[in-house]
């Protein structure tokens, strides 16, 4: 057992205790958390900085507004309802279309207006928020993902998670919804995480739960070697989020829309650790390298160049 622990430490695998004690607690000032935890605020912040985000259709702040929902949604064929303070992808409802008075979810279920209202009430009551405080429900643009992902995606929207440490991208993965995950892109719900070569944006192996996989379980297509379009833009957007929020250790979730290109979906102050399995690499060596060379990386461009050079699949020896 200690042997296993030592080998993992040699590989630079970051454990949850280390992430909490030495990264989120040390580099993420508590006062900036609301910027990240409140999706409405991060959205406004990003929009103000010129970072494209999914268009916000409306915000439901209190119970009486729920009555107006049918009017608000009257002209919308598809949209997403999500809690402003949700975590881990909980409470997100994706409506893909209408069927007379009813709403159709991505997996084909029909929901009545009453069921939609109930979901919004649950969000407002704080069911999905951290600590159960009252929350707001965001209604926003449903992303139509880039056709490059057509073969390796089952319902839902695949997204790209990039971990940014002190402004430098240190690791990235593509998250693919599966039948098990119910169209959600969260790994603990059963989505597949696929490692990404930071240098090229090409996908590596995938991880489902705790196993390494090479194909998408629902479509059967290989998930390796796919080059993610707009890779430079994705890295650039993610890297700029550090200055935006003041968070030193940040997970940035981005989506690729077929019409609008890269959009910032949400930010995460406590990004998960499964990304290490997807990339078959540990985070510790990479963040240490960033800590050592931070002074030499004054600009976003320099940081991205550093990341693409040293965090590639076959990196040159560390400087």
């Amino acid at each position, binding site marked *: *057992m200690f042997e*296993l*622990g030592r*080998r*993992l*430490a*040699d*590989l630079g*695998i970051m*454990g*949850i*205790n*280390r992430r*909490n*004690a*030495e990264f989120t*607690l*040390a580099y993420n000032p508590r006062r900036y958390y609301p910027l990240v935890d409140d999706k409405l605020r991060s959205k406004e912040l990003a929009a103000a900085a010129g970072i494209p985000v999914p268009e916000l259709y409306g915000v439901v702040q209190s*119970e009486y507004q729920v009555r107006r929902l049918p009017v608000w949604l009257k002209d919308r064929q598809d949209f997403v309802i999500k809690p402003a303070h949700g975590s881990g992808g*909980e409470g997100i409802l994706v409506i893909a279309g209408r069927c007379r008075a009813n709403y159709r979810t991505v997996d084909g279920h029909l929901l009545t207006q*009453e*069921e939609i209202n*109930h979901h919004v*009430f*649950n969000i*407002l*009551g*704080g*069911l999905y928020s951290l600590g159960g405080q009252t929350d707001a429900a965001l209604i926003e643009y449903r992303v139509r993902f880039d056709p490059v992902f057509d073969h390796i995606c089952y319902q839902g929207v695949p997204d790209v998670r990039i971990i940014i440490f002190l402004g430098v991208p240190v690791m990235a993965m593509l998250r693919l919804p599966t039948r098990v995950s119910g169209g959600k892109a969260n790994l*603990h*719900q059963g989505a597949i995480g696929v490692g990404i070569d930071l240098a090229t944006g090409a996908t590596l192996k995938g*991880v489902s739960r*705790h*196993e*390494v996989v090479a194909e998408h379980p629902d479509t059967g297509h290989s998930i390796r070697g796919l080059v993610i379009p707009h890779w430079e833009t994705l890295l650039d957007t993610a890297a700029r989020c550090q200055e935006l929020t003041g968070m030193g250790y940040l997970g940035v979730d981005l989506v690729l829309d077929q019409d609008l290109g890269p959009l910032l979906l949400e930010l995460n102050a406590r990004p998960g*650790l499964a990304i*290490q*399995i997807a990339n*078959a*690499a*540990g985070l510790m*060596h990479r963040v240490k390298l960033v800590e050592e060379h931070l002074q030499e990386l004054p600009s976003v461009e320099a940081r991205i160049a550093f990341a693409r050079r040293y965090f590639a*699949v*076959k*990196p040159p020896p560390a400087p």
Partner: protein
Amino acid sequence: MNRTHLYVLAFILAAVGLGLCLYKVLALNFPLSPGAESYTWNVEAKVTFMAGNEPAKLTLFTPRTTRRYAVTNEAFVSQGYGLVTAIEDANRQASWSIRQANGLQTLYYRAEVVRVNTRDPVNPVQPPSIDNPSFEGADLTVARALVDHIRGRSADNETMAAELLKRLKQPQPDDNLALLLGKNPTDRSRMELAAKVLALAGVPARVVHGIVLKEQKERLPVVHWLEIHNHKVWQAIDPNTGAPGIPDNYLAWWRGPLSLARLTGGSDLRVTLSATRELEAAINTAVVRGQIKKPLLLNFSLLSLPLHSQQVYRVLLMVPVGGFLLVLLRNIIGISTFGTFMPVLIALAFRETQLLWGIVFFSTLVALGLSIRFYLDRLKLLLVPRLAAVLIVVVMLMALMSIFTNRLGIERGLSVALFPMVILTMTIERMSIVWEERGPYEAIKQGLGSLLAASLAYVVMHNREIQHLFFVFPELLLVLLAATMLLGRYSGYRLVELWRFKVLAQVPPKES
């Protein structure tokens, strides 16, 4: 993040805690473990009788402090009765009297008795007086023959008494003895006969009546013993073996031929004696026994609190221990539970239900609550009203379970009421959300994790040694605090993470 600061602080806290603890152990002789002997017993005599609408007077013998037991904290519970206590010969008695009483009367005498072992007699030794034994006619002849017989087979008073008891104990006594004993001899009549025969032989003897202290809530039988006066002190003789000495747990209640309680002006007199062990007063016992020096320091400790508050603190001081255990389970091992400290509260409830029943009740309550919660889900209630509804259902389920288990004769079912219902409600709600969001596997996994954590917390928090340690040495909490703070900076792997990232250790690292 300055680690030195943390280490220094933790070191100071641990040093202060351990130092105080060591000082109390080494210099003040505080016992490190609860110890088997340092028990205090609560003894109770319950007297009931029917009063006949006339003046009633009840006299009850009460135990008195001897060199073996100290009697403290006496209480006489009697409404409307006048009370006089008096010492008469070797006995102490309480007399209750009332001008007029009607119907069933219940009086209580309660006291704490503490095992002590003083060398010198506490009470002045009664000068032995030999009453003229009331043998007559044939009895006298037989008794004389018996005395001659036992005197011939013994060297001194003690061996004579032993010989006599041996003969009295025979299952088939010879005709002479049978004549003296009469039909259906009882232990008491045997002892009284022995005392009379010994008196005839010129040895002062008396019968002692008392109880053997053991954990038994219902009526304790009165056990009769023999004492002979042997060179200045009264020497107890075991009625069964004839050997001198008396068991440690024998509490003498009264001596002599009179019965335990006497009543005038009433009928249907009943007296029951009972005893319960008072574990909590172990330290007080030590104080009474004079083992702990400087009781001054005790004035500023938890031991100076009333017994009832001490009980509360005994439990409260276990909560940090449970919290510490959860730190280990969650941050070192990585077990996931519903709610951070929920298992500690469940473990507290397990104190009353005991572990096995606790697990059964908890699982049943959560399972039933969960199924009703799933049904409520279809009604699309708002969050807070739904939580309140689940709370109401949980309370009703608890009541129903108590009623059913009571019907089935399972006494433990009543203690289900002590489960923290708000915590249960939140557990059910969280579990149903996890069930829907992440599937039954995750929900049941976390549920079992909580149950496992609660069971472990129960085992640790219910440990008598640990309870004693933290109650007598509350400064150990400082050590616990230091350890918790050090664990707060533990950044190594959790045990479950080793399993989670195992696949990475198998793949040869790409960088090399």
